């Protein structure tokens, strides 16, 4: 991975930004903040999409 921001990571992984939710180190990151959210070594990134649930 060469991405330095969360948005670059999403682009690199091929996600559709409209239907994913993101968090960095267990803190929510809004869609509009992804481009400015820089990634560092050891960061825990969560990328989630809609799924069946009870």
């Amino acid at each position, binding site marked *: 991975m060469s991405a330095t921001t969360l948005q670059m990571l999403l682009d690199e992984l091929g996600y559709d930004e409209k239907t994913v939710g993101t968090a960095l180190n267990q803190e929510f990151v809004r869609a509009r903040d992804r481009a400015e959210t820089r990634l560092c070594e050891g960061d825990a990134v969560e990328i*989630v*999409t*809609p799924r*069946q*649930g*009870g």
Partner: protein
Amino acid sequence: MNDPVTLYDVALSSRLLLGTARYPSPAILAESIRASGCEIVTVSLRREAGGARAGEAFWSLIRDVGVRVLPNTAGCRTAKEAIATAQMAREVFATDWIKLEVIGEEDTLQPDVFGLVEAARALANDGFKVFPYTTDDLVVADKLLDAGCRVLMPWAAPIGSGRGVNDAFALRALRAHFPDIPLIVDAGLGAPSHAALVMEMGYDAVLLNTAVSRAGDPVLMARAFALAIEAGRAGFRAQPMTPRDMAEPSTPIIGRPFDRLA
């Protein structure tokens, strides 16, 4: 809509909320939702491999069915995880409704009520309309209302167990203590009769998943639960008679043939 239930200012004619997990196929899920007549389904958020599009396909199916969604925080084990999940769900599903689950114990999937109250307060302060999945504990219920919840969802039995009501006394006490709060029984029901029972107790609605999705015929079971919930609700409103220990003739005694006139 002559007997609506109102959840966070939204009036609904169906008193059944349906989970969307563990159905044999997407088509059976869609048909079960329609057969149930429900207006709210629960959904979740999960990780997905970048190339896969399962999430997109599922979300498209739910939008096509045209029901309101109630996202959950299933699987979260801390208030922090649940809060972040709720915030992601609000953005992805474009709703401020959240079914709040903070699980404290693996074998029973019992809520961690301390984490639940903490997360409920944070989310309610952030503008969420919180549907907390809780136990039947009265004091916890009080704390959740104090935290800003306007609906409570006590369990009947552990998630997916199909046991029906474990503690009828506790559920009756909760209903009696909070006569004006919408109470939804969430989790543990297995048969339509279980749902009828809690509706007869005066519960406002029922949330089901496994009882429908793992039935031999989920579509027929969805319909069966809808009928049971409607019957139980009507039974509650009709005010059942008081049980007696001894018989009381239902046919009038006076005028009985062969009876001796005194």
